């Protein structure tokens, strides 16, 4: 009867130091809306306000019309009856949303049975059909722990959409996925509008927004900076912030200054092999990292990128081959982590953690301040705890911590995959600059081939298939 599926009028969120300015939109059948913005811009809260799952202490205002029915956004419980039937949410990091003790097909069948109200047999049948359609026919009997990130994403999608909800909200659906998986997820999401549903996607990935098309809204600190058709906003943004966001795409980065003459390698690996869980990750892999060199590692999720780095650091053992590390640097081999908060104990102030390090290794305090300035870290941040500063700041603090030890080799395991594009660019540019300056070899793992192409001197591609061995490729840097 109505021409729109979802109408939001003046949705605003308030409380606990968060303010999201009133925001309105209209989604009809086949429409797609993408909210684009940096971490902490309040994107996810908008999705939660629609679903009625805002965290305690936050209050939504405004009016919602879902499928012709009116709701007050402040009344969280009112939309509960719509979950699965009218509204479906594809959560962030779906492997956390799946029941780890339940086989994939049962999780999908459960939605078919209890949300869509089918019989036991019908539900099972429908679940298998869904999985088959998503190319998961073999994964149905597996537990979530045995699925890759992309597969878990598709299972979660199947479970969330089993109720046939026309409005799908996807919250950071591509977080932590590599490029091919990301494209697969985008295709998956595009099914909803193709079937005359409405899709609301929340992402920090410009590429995802571009592929999805439709309308794009750029958010910053709870304010709408710019909105319009994807084509227009993502090619010729009017706002200053939109332009910066676009410039942060790896393909537009400036290339780093070339690496000078090659010096004796800091790490030399020869004939490495690793088999995990009966699957060969790589075989006969040889590589060297020179001081100041940036070596990029690309490959699909689960292909052993992190394992390779851990081997070079000496944390993990290899099945065959050997690793030779430069001598005279007992603390010279350091690592940067994918999820900055996970690499810190959340209970202590940063100043305390820094003090511990200084005292442990009798470091020179005078060196800290200039390095902090260099990394763009404000001294006031030190009075906070790891959970209280942004991911980008924390990653830069992690860089500060490892650089104080004057490392000769740094393994950066997707250090920016959880950061928004602008922060990612800042962080990686700094990392490359400092690595060159301090003659520190860096092995950078990334799921973004464009990024590796841009800043790395050398690229190693690990293919997931067991028959292939790692190849060392020189990029266009020559």
């Amino acid at each position, binding site marked *: 009867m109505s021409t729109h599926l979802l109408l939001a009028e003046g949705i605003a969120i308030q409380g*606990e*130091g*968060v303010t999201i300015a009133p925001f309105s939109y209209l989604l009809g059948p086949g429409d797609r809306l993408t909210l684009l913005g940096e971490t*902490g*811009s*309040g994107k996810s809260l908008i999705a939660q306000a629609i679903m009625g799952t805002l965290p305690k*202490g936050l209050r939504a205002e405004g009016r919602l019309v879902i499928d012709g029915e009116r709701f007050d956004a402040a009344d969280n419980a009112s939309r509960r009856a719509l979950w699965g039937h009218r509204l479906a949410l594809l959560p962030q990091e779906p492997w956390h949303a799946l029941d780890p003790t339940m086989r994939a097909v049962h999780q999908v069948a459960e939605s078919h049975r209890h949300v869509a109200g089918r019989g036991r047999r019908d539900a099972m049948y429908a679940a298998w059909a869904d999985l088959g359609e998503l190319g998961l026919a073999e994964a149905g009997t597996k537990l979530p722990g045995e699925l890759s990130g992309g597969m878990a994403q598709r299972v979660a999608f199947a479970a969330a959409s089993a109720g046939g909800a026309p409005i799908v909200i996807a919250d950071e659906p591509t977080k932590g996925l590599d490029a091919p998986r990301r494209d697969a997820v985008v295709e998956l999401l595009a099914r909803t509008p193709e079937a005359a549903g409405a899709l609301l996607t929340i992402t920090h990935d410009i590429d995802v927004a571009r592929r999805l098309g439709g309308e794009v809204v750029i958010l910053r*600190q*709870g304010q709408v900076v710019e909105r319009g058709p994807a084509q227009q906003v993502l090619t010729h943004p009017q706002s200053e912030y939109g332009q910066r966001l676009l410039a942060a795409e790896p393909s537009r980065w400036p290339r780093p200054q070339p690496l000078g003459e090659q010096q004796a390698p800091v790490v030399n690996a020869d004939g490495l092999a690793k088999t995990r869980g009966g699957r060969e990750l790589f075989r006969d892999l040889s590589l060297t990292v020179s001081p100041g060199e940036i070596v990029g590692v690309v490959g699909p999720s689960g292909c052993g990128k992190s394992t390779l780095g851990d081997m070079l*650091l000496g*944390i993990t053992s290899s099945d065959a081959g050997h690793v030779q590390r430069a001598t005279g640097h*007992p*603390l010279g*081999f*350091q*690592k940067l*982590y994918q*999820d900055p908060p*996970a*690499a*810190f*104990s*959340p*209970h*202590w102030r940063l100043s305390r*953690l820094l003090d*511990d*390090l200084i005292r*442990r*290794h009798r470091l020179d305090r005078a060196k800290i301040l200039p390095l902090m300035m260099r990394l763009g870290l404000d001294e006031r941040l030190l009075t906070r*705890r790891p*959970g*209280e*500063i*942004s991911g*980008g*700041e924390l990653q830069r603090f*992690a860089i500060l*911590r*490892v650089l104080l*030890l004057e490392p000769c080799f740094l393994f950066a395991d997707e250090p920016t995959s959880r950061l928004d594009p602008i*922060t990612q660019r800042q962080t990686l540019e700094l990392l490359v600059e400092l690595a060159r300056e301090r003659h520190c070899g860096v092995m950078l793992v990334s799921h973004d081939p464009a990024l590796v192409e841009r800043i790395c001197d050398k690229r190693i591609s690990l293919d997931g298939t067991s028959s292939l061995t790692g190849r060392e490729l020189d990029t266009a840097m020559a």
Partner: protein
Amino acid sequence: MSTLTLHPARRRLPALNGRQRLGATLLALLLAFAWLVPWLFDADPARQQLTRILQLPSLAEPLGTDHLGRSLLARLAAAVQLSLGMALLSVTTAAVPGVLLGVIAGWRGGWLDRVLGSLADACLALPGLLLVLLLVAIAPGNFWALYVGISLVLWIEYFRVVRARTRVLVTSPQLEASRLLGFGPLYLFRRHLWPELAPQVLTLAAFGAASAILAMAALGFVSVGLRPPTAELGLMMIELLPYYHEAPWAMAQPIVVLFVLVLSLNLLAGRDPR
């Protein structure tokens, strides 16, 4: 760059919730009762006055007297002191080795983990109270037998919880990062493990104290625990039981005190999972 802090600042010690505050208040009142009474009233819990048995509360004897004319006020205070002291002692002796062994087992893994795990399972194979009874039968009426028995039952909980948590934490990036930065095991325990373990250990400790008090009172009640004339809650109950008809108020007192004691500790321990 500016950020939006979505989470309020994390406080060092989590604030007590309403229930926990009630528990803490009750416990504080009991502590005050146990330690202030002997100080303010010159009352000996063992002094018998056979001319004044089972008297109603009066100004001289605010809680009345028992069947041997002993001051119930003094006896209750002594009993609460004994119970709390015993609970504190058994909880400490159970928690310290429990946490240490749990950390060692979870950290080292391998054969050490298996040996310690089997040891804990062996202790767990005997029902807790039976183990205490066994020890009490070996050395009847002895304080140490009770104490060792209760501690032996309690340490396993700490061990298991700490081991499971440590196992996860040891492989976490935060520990790996600190290890790469050159920090030793003591530092890793202090900065990474203990802050994560402490809330669970303290919750277990409060529950453990309550069960230690209950175990002691139960043993006293079945007359295998401490011996008269010790003022002990279970013992007082069984001593006053024959007079429940003549002096119900006297019999009710140790019961109420025991109830409040266990309630306060359970309230203190019971925090919301989130």
